[in-house]
């Protein structure tokens, strides 16, 4: 079963599997009932996926996971913001919907594997599954898959992970697929571009103004309209100090309606919420070296895994609570080791 979002990557994933002689069925998930103009949720995307499936001569189904997506992705996203955290809904969707509910469904329906259009690679070594970065460094999506373990990896395949995006597009064009030139999806799929994050959250939770407090002096140095929308490490809206230096959000305190700001936000480490830590194939030994990545296309940073904390070798931009930290292998920096959510 191929999860077809209506984008070019999953279209080509399906095409490659068909070309390889697999028995392939496409499935598109309806995840969100509200208005949305991008990503995984619109009727136009379902139409694209269905048409590509027709072009490939495979069956196609639409599955309604709206309820589960709301409960496991959207509500936690809203709750996290209400608490001043910075969630990653794509990771939660992968964790709870695509590689749990859909994978289970594919198994119940008798499919050997679930394929998606993610740019990442699964390899088998000595009977164990490895998760590796996609071949195109600019499009690598191993970060948003970094929470997968052996059980899920045993059931998934990423057919475009060995290709560059350009190769994917030219393959789609050669097959005449209507998604060949479709732009990449960018933002959070359930948030409408016109409405924006503030509009989306503002209709669901109260957004509160807050004061900006200087980290060194404790003085009030400004204000923001919505403390729930501030991310640790953010510069925009934080102003400048008296000597003209940029200021950054260092800490967000929703209950006291306060954002602590400072000139140097860099941190030496980040603690992970232990309940969220997952491993691709068993835990790193305490004190082991690794390479950390803290956003989808963030720069990998050498670190050590020490006492449930990621200790960076050199100071890093801060990691906001709620952000996922993906850990890669020290000696094999394309291989994901595990992941966790910043406490």
């Amino acid at each position, binding site marked *: 079963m191929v999860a077809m979002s209506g984008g070019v990557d999953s279209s080509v994933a399906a095409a490659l599997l068909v070309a390889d002689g697999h028995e392939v069925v496409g499935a598109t998930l*309806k995840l969100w009932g509200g208005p949305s103009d991008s990503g995984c949720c619109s009727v136009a995307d379902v139409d694209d996926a*269905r048409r590509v499936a027709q072009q490939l001569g495979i*069956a196609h*189904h639409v599955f*309604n996971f709206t309820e589960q997506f709301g409960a496991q992705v959207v509500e936690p996203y809203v709750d996290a913001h209400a608490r001043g955290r910075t969630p990653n809904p794509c990771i939660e969707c992968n964790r709870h919907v695509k590689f749990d509910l859909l994978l289970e469904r594919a198994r*119940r*329906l008798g*499919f*050997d594997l679930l394929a998606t259009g993610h740019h990442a690679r699964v390899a088998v070594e000595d009977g164990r599954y490895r998760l590796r970065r996609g071949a195109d460094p600019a499009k690598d999506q191993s970060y948003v898959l970094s929470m997968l373990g052996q059980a899920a990896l045993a059931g998934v395949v990423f057919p475009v992970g060995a290709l560059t995006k350009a190769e994917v597009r030219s393959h789609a064009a050669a097959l005449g697929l209507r998604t060949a030139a479709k732009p990449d999806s960018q933002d959070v799929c359930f948030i409408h571009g016109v409405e924006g994050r503030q509009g989306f959250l503002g209709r669901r939770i109260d957004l509160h103004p807050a004061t900006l407090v200087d980290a060194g002096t404790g003085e009030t140095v400004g204000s923001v309209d919505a403390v729930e929308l501030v991310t640790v490490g953010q510069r925009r809206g934080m102003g400048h100090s008296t000597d003209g230096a940029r200021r950054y959000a260092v800490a967000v305190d929703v209950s006291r309606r306060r954002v602590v700001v400072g000139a140097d936000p860099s941190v030496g480490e980040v603690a992970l919420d232990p309940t969220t830590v997952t491993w691709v194939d068993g835990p790193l030994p305490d004190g082991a070296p690794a390479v950390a990545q803290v956003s989808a296309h963030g720069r990998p940073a050498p670190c050590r895994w020490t006492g449930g904390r990621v200790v960076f070798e050199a100071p890093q931009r801060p990691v906001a609570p709620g952000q996922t930290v993906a850990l890669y292998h020290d000696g094999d920096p394309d291989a994901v080791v595990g992941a966790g959510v910043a406490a």
Partner: protein
Amino acid sequence: MIAYLDHAASSPLRPEVLEALAPFLATQFGHPSSSHRVGRAARAALEEARDTVARLLGAEPKEVVFTSGGSEADNLAVLGVLGAAARPGRVVTSAVEHPAVREPARAAARYLPGVEHVEAPVDADGAVDLDRLADMLDEQVALVSVMTANNEVGTLQPLADVLTLTRRLAPRALVHTDAVQAAPWLDLATVTAGADLVSISAHKLGGPKGAGALVVSEGTPLRPLLHGGGQERERRGGTHDVAGAVGLATALAAAVAGREEEIVRVRALRDRLADGLVDLVPGAAESADRRRVLPGHCHVRFAGVDHEELLVLLDDAGVCASGGSACASGALEPSPVLAAMGLGGGGVRFSLGWTTTGTEVEHALEVVPKAVATLAGAGRPRR
């Protein structure tokens, strides 16, 4: 082997319909409004089709408005009546109407000043609750729309009682009924007698998709949805679909001609299917009392399985059935009909019709229990 058990979605085209309508897609191409001989030939076929439809529905030919199908007929009824009403008022529908009635009623409440829309609840079988309906009827009601029989579970509505109540309690109201599902099975000339507006659709009868009709009783004020060249006595502009009209009339005539025998034959198959499923599948239950549903409708709920998954396995094994209401994307939505009946979860609608055979029913009885067992157990063995 394919068991096509989705006649309520679309019934296969009858051979005699194809034969009757084909000339109007080929040699008889005239515009029925043209005054020359080619146009007149098309016009003659159109008016003959109108005569047939009128006769079989117990109406006058001038009361038949050809449309592009059931949805247009329903929209024309709801919005056409409200648009022409001397003063705005309330629209009362049942809680289990097809979206083609429900949505224009909601849209009217949203966009037309002074219009409100209320839905009368239904009982456990999906039939409208007459006491609750009566509570909603008064001088303010402009339109009452209650379907002749439900599209999902097939429940017959007490239309005669709805008419009596409406005439007594809401003297200003017009009554519309969506008879799209009922048309293959009921004598609409009798069952819908007294209604001001009646919708039918060709492809539920073994006719072509994209053709239908709204019967509008003489004197009923109606504002057109489509303005144009004044066709259909200024109730529906646009060049006539002659082939569609001929197809509708031929399909309706064919359904009526064999009706009594078909009802007996199909109901026996339907009961065999329902009995078999309930016997063979633990936790399977018919969604409505079979004595109250159309002869071809067999709506069953299967406890403990995801109906979306079940439909995939049935499709795989060649059993074509329906999960109820699908949204624009094609995903299954929670059914408002089942919700109104107080039933949670989903269900599967098997609907039988003029082509259904005992072999198809037996195939379904072989496939469905296995599929449910697969999903209720550990899943299906790898392919």
